[in-house]
């Protein structure tokens, strides 16, 4: 089999999966909306109408306003930019580091594995908040730092999961056979190991994205990441929770947006997983 047909097969399978295509469609829509936010948002994300204050949805403000009288719809639209970016980039950072680390450790085994995983243990142990405060103080705040900070934390669990999978795979017949045939390490990773662990990776990645988006809300609150008056879904939800009894719409609408995104992501991720699974073809 050559890799071309593997990918085109996968794409074919993906296109036949209605749920996945629907999820993909929603995701693309969200990304388009995020890019176009400055043009389609009815108001500025920062303009305060203090005399209006928190008002429920109305014809003026479709999703209502927050306590400072800012239009919620506009804030959600602008927030999509930050949240989608953080969600995808930070997760990608975590994935790249975590997967490569896990594959190498798991496949190499022995002393290399032991040292690599002990490094993971050490990083797990360091106090996260001190780490964040230091990052802010040393580098100031910017969005890329936020991606780095989140990615740096999230990759650890990824690495552990991947390593566990690889250890399970490496004594299986097809891997041993490939090894006997003198397949190089790199193509072993790419051709034989990676495709077989895509399932758990895809699942864990879809689990990581929402976590990352919420973590961004917390870090922004601490001062790392976006600065007020900019909005993100994480900060909107965080604010919404605090006034959920008084101004429920401030939690409901960002919450719905967030949930829809995650469902879309999830359908798409599952579809991708099925499509890429080398075993589904002969099912």
């Amino acid at each position: 089999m050559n890799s071309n047909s593997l990918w085109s097969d996968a794409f074919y399978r993906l296109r036949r999966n209605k749920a996945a295509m629907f999820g993909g469609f929603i995701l693309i829509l969200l990304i388009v909306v995020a890019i176009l936010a400055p043009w389609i948002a009815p108001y500025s994300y920062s303009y305060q109408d203090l005399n209006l204050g928190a008002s429920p949805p109305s014809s003026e403000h479709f999703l209502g306003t927050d306590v400072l009288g800012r239009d919620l719809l506009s804030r959600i639209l602008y927030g999509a930019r930050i949240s989608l970016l953080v969600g995808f980039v930070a997760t990608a950072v975590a994935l790249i580091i975590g997967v490569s680390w896990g594959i190498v450790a798991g496949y190499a085994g022995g002393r290399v594995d032991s040292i690599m995983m002990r490094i993971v243990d050490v990083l797990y142990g360091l106090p996260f908040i001190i780490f964040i405060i230091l990052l802010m103080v040393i580098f100031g705040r910017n969005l890329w730092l936020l991606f780095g900070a989140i990615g740096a934390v999230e990759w650890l669990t990824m690495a552990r999961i991947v390593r566990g999978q690889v250890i399970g795979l490496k004594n299986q017949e097809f891997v041993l056979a490939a090894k006997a045939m003198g397949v190089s390490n790199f193509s072993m990773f790419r051709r034989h190991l990676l495709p077989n662990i895509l399932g758990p990776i895809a699942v864990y990645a879809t689990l990581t994205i929402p976590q990352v988006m919420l973590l961004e809300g917390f870090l922004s609150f601490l001062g790392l990441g976006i600065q007020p008056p900019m909005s993100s879904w994480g900060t909107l939800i965080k604010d919404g929770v605090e006034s959920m009894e008084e101004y429920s719409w401030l939690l409901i609408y960002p919450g719905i947006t967030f949930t829809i995104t995650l469902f879309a992501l999830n359908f798409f991720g599952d579809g991708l997983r099925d499509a890429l699974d080398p075993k589904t073809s002969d099912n």
Partner: protein
Amino acid sequence: MLAIFFKRILLAIPVLFAVATITFFLIKIAPGGPFDADRAVSPQVLKNLNEAYNLNASNWQQYVDYMSGLLRGDLGPSFRFPGRSVSEMIATGLPVTFELAFYAILIALVMGVFSGVLAALKRNTFLDFIPMSIAMIGICVPTFLMGPLLVLIFGINLEVLPVSGWGQLPGDKILPSLTLGFAYAAYIARLSRGGMLEVLNQDFIRTARAKGLTERMVVVKHAMQGGLIPVVSFLGPAIAGLLAGSFVVETIFQIPGLGRFYVEAAFNRDYTMILGTTIFFSAMIVFFNLMSDLASLWLNPRSRDAS
């Protein structure tokens, strides 16, 4: 297996040493000291305070002093709470956090594994979609929302459960355990479904089925062993994360656990407390990661044979 266990326990020593060293210097670089306060004290008073806590010595000297104390099992006095030692504070918070984490993990495992395995077996039916949708919502709903939500429903509106506390009023342990458990149940459900699907396609399952074993035997004896490996590797960090991350739940429910000490110490720059709790949590992480590694080893017949 025993040999691996002891080897890894030995390897924990350099890990903890590295964590302690890095943390020690990280908190020294972090701006702000334990005695900075809104009402700034005079330089004279600050000098006296630093004197009292050995903070006027060079960083290197402090490091050596701290490490030699650590070797004797002395974690030092808390800076934030004069008259309390760090070991004493860990000892008070620990049992509470352990208990909370235990209930939460129990809830998460039962709910997560059950619905995940079921969903994988009944793939693309309602028994798949419904639990998985609930799990997705469980992942969307962060603990800082789930906690207050449960409290408002059961504590304030229905008035059937206390809104806070731990072992103070009857039934006050239910809501925090559920809140913390839900979050992890959702993850476990997703992971176990994914893992099970992976395994159910494999040859040895088909062989087992072909041999005429009952479906139940196939699932419990064969599929779950391999299918739950991702869950097991997740459990190690999850338990450790649960201990350290119980902060949110402990704060929402006013529970006197270690998570609050851990996070508040960082904000207070309570140096010894940060170090003590960090080292302690690292030990927990190492331990639970080791446990989960051993468990995956045991669940995975191939790597078991190989070792």
